[in-house]
């Protein structure tokens, strides 16, 4: 083979190298083109799932003080000043409020902006009228947003169409950031020259990036600064301009930009920024407000209007001047806009959620039905069951009491912890959930995840198991509260002691529960059979498998506050078991309904034994271990509940219900130290504080058909008459009441009863009934 001439060879190598370089460059450009097109096209902004509280429904006779309505409207960002142009305000009138409600897309459709007048009287809504003075049956206030499930980096945004963005915002943006935006093809040669110069002369001068380049940088690239990156940015900007028109690029830019930080939540896009800083939709931003947002683009932290108002104001005014100088604003508009202050809303500072514990519950329930990725990107709207009033009350009650106990006990750090669950008695909706003393802290959620010994909280299941059989047990059946030893093979003897270290002999069943006697409960429970009692626990809604040991009966079983809530919810609902739910509806971001979580109940127990059990639990509050509750709540509310305290008082519980709400409170140390606080001394006050601030409904269970009321002498547990001092009417299943008369029931009394009976039958005969 003849050797190739050297010159020729070099030429070939050079040619090849050139070709390779050219191919590589073309390939790289092609690759960038692919990235630009696929990512820009395929890129749908990841939108967080937005979670809302329950909407407040105003109607005549609603029990709510005016101040609470005002507080909710304020939380929604309603201004307390009337405005003709902008809905979303309230003003006080002689007997109440005039409210201008914003439009809102509810689960069942759009509700237009309306104006209503609400009259209040004695903590109730007296009347509700529309703007013409006509009575209005119902007005739904938009629900409070309580957080979201966010995409990566907790980016939050509200997408807007370019057509919705005010012209002056776009003009201010172009005047300040990229004057030749509508003329250039992705880059500005002068800008590039300036940037190149700055590379040589040092990193002093910056800028020169067009909006397109800024978008490319935010979209595709890392923030590092290098020649190569700058070149890539340039090529991609040109490619972007080749494929898309100016308005598409501008719209994407306006939705992409970073405009500040709300704790751990990143504020992106002008849509959300308008809401966050000014409490209004982007359409209604004024020139001055638009100029502030545009000014902040340069450095949202540096020009933070909350923390650096002077700096932000100066920057805004600069933007206004540029806008005027570019001919986008008249001298008059400029002077007017400049004259005003920043007028930003006070910083709400809620971060990703003010109620992270409740949000966690919502998130877990959602995860059963939706893909995590969809939750974090599809902008779903989740209508939850959170009642902001109940939630605030629960948070306040817990943190205040814990601080007080810490001061009194001085057990050092870390301090006492606690958890609260509040549900709606009828529907099983979770209204409030607190996972620890710092309700804003997103971390260990004790309400869901702290499984702790429940102590006496399981006792109602023992008594319910007994009361189901009226031939053997009634509320006055004597139960033996003497020393009790339980022997079982392979386990040490079990000898439950009473809280007061005494035994009480024979006591009525309801008294044994009211005073939470351990020996009596253990004897009764083992008599009935541990398995049988645990089956009752399960039917009440506790899904966790409990150990079939006798000691489980007295609460040597670990449950979370939410599990306890499930059990007590079934009792509160008269034996109807409903899953505890935190979500009512889910819609797409534009309001199309996707999923409803309907009310669903199962009848776990017949109403009669539930009625008897509830009556006994009312005695716990009336005369038993929870009598302290009367400090907070009138005995007329007839509240039912149960205290729970575990060994060495490591855990303190109270679970109970009014006519409308059920609440569970747990208090203890995370590291299981002895808290030296009983359920009635610590959990009970939290429960009392909480419920007292929510105007509870009295508990009035409907009397089932199979129940009769019989006058009983508490001393003997026998039938009494009206001559017996201290006699009480107690419920019994038809025919199960004692027949024997108490010693106090005199012959006269008996005679009177007899006369009454005769008179009744005489009347019956007379009217042929």
């Amino acid at each position, binding site marked *: 083979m003849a050797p190739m001439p050297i010159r020729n060879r070099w030429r070939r190598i050079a040619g090849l190298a050139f070709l390779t370089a050219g191919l590589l460059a073309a390939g790289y450009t092609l690759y960038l083109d692919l990235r630009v097109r696929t990512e820009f096209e395929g890129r749908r902004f990841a939108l967080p799932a937005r979670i809302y509280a329950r909407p407040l429904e105003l*109607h005549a006779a*609603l029990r709510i003080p005016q101040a609470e309505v005002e507080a909710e409207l304020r939380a929604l960002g309603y201004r307390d000043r009337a405005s003709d142009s902008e809905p979303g305000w309230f003003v006080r009138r002689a007997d109440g409020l005039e409210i201008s409600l914003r439009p809102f897309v509810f689960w069942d459709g759009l509700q237009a902006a309306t104006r209503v007048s609400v009259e209040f009287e004695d903590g109730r809504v007296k009347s509700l009228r529309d703007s013409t003075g006509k009575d209005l049956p119902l007005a739904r206030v938009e629900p409070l947003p309580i957080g979201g499930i966010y995409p990566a980096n907790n980016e939050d945004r509200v997408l807007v169409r370019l057509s919705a963005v005010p012209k002056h915002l776009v003009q201010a943006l172009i005047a300040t950031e990229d004057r030749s935006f509508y003329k250039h093809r992705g880059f500005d040669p002068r800008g590039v020259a300036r940037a190149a110069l700055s590379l040589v002369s040092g990193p002093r001068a910056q800028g020169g990036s067009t909006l397109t380049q800024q978008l490319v940088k935010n979209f595709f690239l890392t923030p590092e600064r290098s020649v190569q990156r700058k070149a890539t940015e340039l090529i991609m900007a040109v490619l972007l301009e080749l494929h898309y028109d100016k308005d598409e690029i501008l719209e994407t830019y306006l939705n992409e930009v970073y405009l500040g930080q709300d704790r751990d939540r990143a504020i992106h896009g002008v849509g959300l920024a308008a809401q966050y800083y000014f409490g209004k939709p982007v359409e209604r931003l004024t020139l001055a407000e638009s100029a502030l947002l545009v000014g902040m683009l340069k450095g949202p932290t540096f020009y933070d209007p909350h923390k650096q108002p002077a700096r932000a104001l100066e920057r805004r005014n600069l933007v206004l001047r540029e806008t005027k100088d570019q001919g986008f604003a008249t001298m008059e508009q400029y002077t007017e806009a400049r004259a005003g202050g920043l007028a930003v809303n006070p910083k709400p500072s809620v971060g990703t959620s003010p109620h992270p514990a409740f949000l966690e519950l919502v998130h877990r329930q959602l995860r059963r039905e939706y893909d995590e990725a969809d939750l974090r990107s599809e902008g779903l709207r989740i209508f939850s069951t959170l009642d902001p009033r109940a939630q605030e009350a629960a948070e306040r009650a817990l943190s205040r009491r814990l601080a007080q106990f810490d001061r009194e006990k001085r057990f050092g750090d870390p301090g006492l912890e606690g958890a609260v669950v509040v549900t709606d008695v009828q529907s099983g909706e979770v209204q409030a959930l607190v996972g620890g003393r710092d309700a804003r802290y997103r971390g260990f959620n004790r309400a869901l995840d702290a499984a702790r010994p429940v102590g006496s909280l399981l006792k109602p299941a023992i008594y319910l198991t007994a009361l189901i059989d009226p031939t053997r047990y009634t509320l006055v059946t004597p139960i033996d509260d003497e020393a009790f030893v339980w022997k079982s093979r392979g386990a040490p003897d079990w000898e439950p002691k009473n809280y007061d270290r005494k035994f009480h002999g024979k006591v009525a069943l309801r008294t044994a529960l009211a005073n939470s006697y351990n020996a009596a409960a253990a004897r009764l429970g083992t008599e009935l059979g541990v398995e049988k009692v645990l089956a009752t626990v399960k039917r009440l809604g506790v899904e966790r498998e409990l150990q079939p040991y006798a000691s489980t009966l007295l609460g040597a079983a670990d449950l979370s506050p939410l599990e306890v809530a499930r059990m007590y919810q079934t009792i509160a609902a008269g034996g109807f078991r409903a899953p505890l739910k935190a979500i009512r509806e889910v819609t797409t971001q534009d309001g199309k309904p996707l999923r409803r979580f309907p009310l669903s109940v199962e009848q776990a127990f017949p109403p009669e034994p539930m009625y008897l059990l509830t009556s006994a639990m009312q005695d716990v509050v009336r005369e038993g271990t929870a009598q302290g509750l009367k400090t907070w709540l009138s005995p007329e509310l007839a509240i039912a509940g149960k205290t729970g305290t575990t060994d060495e008082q490591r855990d303190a519980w109270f679970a109970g219900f009014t006519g409308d709400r059920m609440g569970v409170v747990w208090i203890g140390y995370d590291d299981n130290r002895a808290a030296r606080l009983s359920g009635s001394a610590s959990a009970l006050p939290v429960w009392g504080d909480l419920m007292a601030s929510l105007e509870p409904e009295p508990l009035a269970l409907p009397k089932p058909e199979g129940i009769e009321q019989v006058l009983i002498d508490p001393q003997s547990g026998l039938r009494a008459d009206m001559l017996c001092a201290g006699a009480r009417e107690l419920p019994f299943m038809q025919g199960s009441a004692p027949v024997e008369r108490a010693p106090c029931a005199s012959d006269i009394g008996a005679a009177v009863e007899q006369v009454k009976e005769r008179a009744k039958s005489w009347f019956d005969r007379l009217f042929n009934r």
Partner: protein
Amino acid sequence: MRVLFLVLLIAGCSSVKYTAPVEPPPIPPAPEESLPPPPPAHVETAAVAGLLQSSRADADAGRLGSAAATLERALRIEPRNARLWHELARVRMKQGDFAQAETVAARSNTWAGSDKELQSANQRLIQEARAARGMTGR
């Protein structure tokens, strides 16, 4: 260029779709004709009366999901209104959810007090639901 085209095609198809149904598909024809007419309305608060009316309109138009949702909304306002529970039981019946129809009617009964008429309406509904359940296993 062909690759580019392909990628674009794929990108165009990649948007996420939801499959979660809004309302369950209509299930076996509920024995609607055999249902007795609803007991005569009694006096509700204006708020609840309005909701009840719109729920009935929804139910008549076959929008059973909305009808149920509206009743639940009314029940949040008057949770002890036995008539609302009864109406909900009827809607559940029409939806073919016989188990819920039965329980919700039982729930209505607990709040029915001395309203004999409502009690017997609930009783009938419970029997219908049981019979339907026996047939369909639902």
